[in-house]
């Protein structure tokens, strides 16, 4: 009876089984958030030199890491190829095929962690880049010339291709029903790879990585939070979050990208809450919307998928509206020649630590539980019954993270992220408005927004997971 059927039949791979935060912990954490915010503001009022610059420590030269980097790149390509093969030819069972935990847990969750906490590993090992570089080299060796002339990249395109592609990815991650079907996932992966290579071929590798390869942009944003980065041929250590203080306002398309990222992370948690369940039921219960949904469902999507797709579009729009309003209030409270959009573009990155913290809190138990599937699957990636490294019979231990560990770490991480965000906002305000007086006044709307955002993140973790 125990082994009667595979649990993979439905109900996505990598479900979370976390117990919701107890009410008292949620209230204490939200309280701590507010108190710490005011403590920080009080500190900014007294401390004049705050945020003048940040310390950095220059570590070893990057040249020394070259062999390691080459090895990592090779490993990246190998894993990419094996993962794709597993998806296409392996057993079509999410729990017995390498592709599902590799893509959704180890790569998407794992890389976000590494990029945010260490440094931009994706920029180093991105297999799509490595393969393209190999092809460039092969072409040059065969023909004696570089790949044919590229098209000029239209300035108005900016990072919009990455925005659109990331929205597509978020849809696949959060709404797509077949995301755990190995062959479908492999097909999507291959399509994305082909699209990336076409983009690189048309506009040049670096330009496409910067503007069109959604994951290079995502992991770059996350890695700005990280303590390690490369500068002038050296590995440099800096305080966490320091990379998020922009020297100049980001471009509008980049602002939209960042808000889309933040919104999709929040929606990921929100869609598992009872409130979302109620919204879904209410929407489908309304006669006019239900009939519209029924007609749309002829296209092959079920009703709840359509509602979730609409929510996925609505969330970033709400984030954009709220952030734009906040920027408007900031502009109204401080004399500045900057437009509202410019103010928004100057401050948007300071919200990233809250999103990073929420992402870590939401996913670290998943990484430690569902991530364990990699151990047996490393020995049997296709589900053919192999045992390459002798680990195929490993049994996943779901109890590895106790609820206490989950609760206290999640709350600590979120409150820490909030404090870092508050400090960053202050530093950014000093840079944008020059005077301390202006900086302090301008921050009040931003602080209110940050408290609301952090409290929302905590509230989601305090909700029972449904659906």
């Amino acid at each position, binding site marked *: 009876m125990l082994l009667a059927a595979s*649990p993979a039949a*439905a109900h996505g791979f990598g479900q979370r*089984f976390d117990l919701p935060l107890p009410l008292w912990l949620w209230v204490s954490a939200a309280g701590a958030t507010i108190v710490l915010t005011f403590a920080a503001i009080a500190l900014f009022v007294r401390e004049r030199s705050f945020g003048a610059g940040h310390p950095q420590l220059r570590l070893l030269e990057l040249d020394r890491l070259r062999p390691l980097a080459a090895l990592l790149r090779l490993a990246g390509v190998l894993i990419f190829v094996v993962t794709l093969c597993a998806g296409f030819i392996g057993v079509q069972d999410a729990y017995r095929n390498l592709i599902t935990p590799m893509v959704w847990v180890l790569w998407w969750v794992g890389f976000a962690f590494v990029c945010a906490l260490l440094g931009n590993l994706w920029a180093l090992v991105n297999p799509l880049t490595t393969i393209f570089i190999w092809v460039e080299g092969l072409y040059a060796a065969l023909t004696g010339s570089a790949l044919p002339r590229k098209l000029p990249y239209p300035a108005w395109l900016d990072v919009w291709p990455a925005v659109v592609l990331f929205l597509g990815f978020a849809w696949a991650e959060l709404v797509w029903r077949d995301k755990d079907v190995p062959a479908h996932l492999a097909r999507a992966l291959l399509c994305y790879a082909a699209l990336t290579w076409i983009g690189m071929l048309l506009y040049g590798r670096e330009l496409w990585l910067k503007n069109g390869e959604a994951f290079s942009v995502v992991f770059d944003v996350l890695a700005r939070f990280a303590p390690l980065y490369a500068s002038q041929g050296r590995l440099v250590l800096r305080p966490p979050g320091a990379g998020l203080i922009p020297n100049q306002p980001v471009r509008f398309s980049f602002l939209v990208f960042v808000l889309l990222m933040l919104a999709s992370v929040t929606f990921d948690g929100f869609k598992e809450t009872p409130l979302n369940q109620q919204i879904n039921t209410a929407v489908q219960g309304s006669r006019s919307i239900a009939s519209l949904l029924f007609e749309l469902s002829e296209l092959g999507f079920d009703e709840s998928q359509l509602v979730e797709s609409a929510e996925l579009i609505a969330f970033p729009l709400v984030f954009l509206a709220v952030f734009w309003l906040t920027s408007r209030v900031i502009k109204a409270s401080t004399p500045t020649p900057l437009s509202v959009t410019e103010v928004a573009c100057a401050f948007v990155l300071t919200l990233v630590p809250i999103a990073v913290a929420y992402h870590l809190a939401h996913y670290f138990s998943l990484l430690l539980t569902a991530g364990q599937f990699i151990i047996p699957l490393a020995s049997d990636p296709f589900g053919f019954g192999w045992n390459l490294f002798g680990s195929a019979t490993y049994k996943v231990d779901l109890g590895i993270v106790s609820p206490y560990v989950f609760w206290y770490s999640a709350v600590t991480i979120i409150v820490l992220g909030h404090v870092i965000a508050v400090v960053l906002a202050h530093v950014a305000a000093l840079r944008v408005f020059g005077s301390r007086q202006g900086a302090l006044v301008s921050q009040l709307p931003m602080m209110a927004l940050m408290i609301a955002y952090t409290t929302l993140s905590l509230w989601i973790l305090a909700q029972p997971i*449904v659906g």
Partner: protein
Amino acid sequence: MRRRAFVKLAVLAFVAPAAADAGLRVFELAIANGRIDPSYETIRVTKGDNVELRWSSDKPIALHLHGYDIEVSVSPQSPAVMAFVAKIAGRFPVSEHRHGGGHERAVLYLEVHP
């Protein structure tokens, strides 16, 4: 059937002192039209409890307790029992397994508190 369940309970009660520290939690869960009484939508137990979920249903239904990965088939003629020690803390859905895919709906949630 009821009598057998009663006898089993009696036997368990008899051996209970041997496992006095771990509580025995028995839930009688009747499914009507694929749904459970709302008061049972979330059932709470404590880590280490011996849990018995005794299912009956007015229609044939296949149930799956996620996380613990226990599956039973229930029909009007044959109720079924999920018996296990709640070793893992967390919140686990029991959902209906249907053939032909489609969205899987949770029948209830089991919360194992530390």
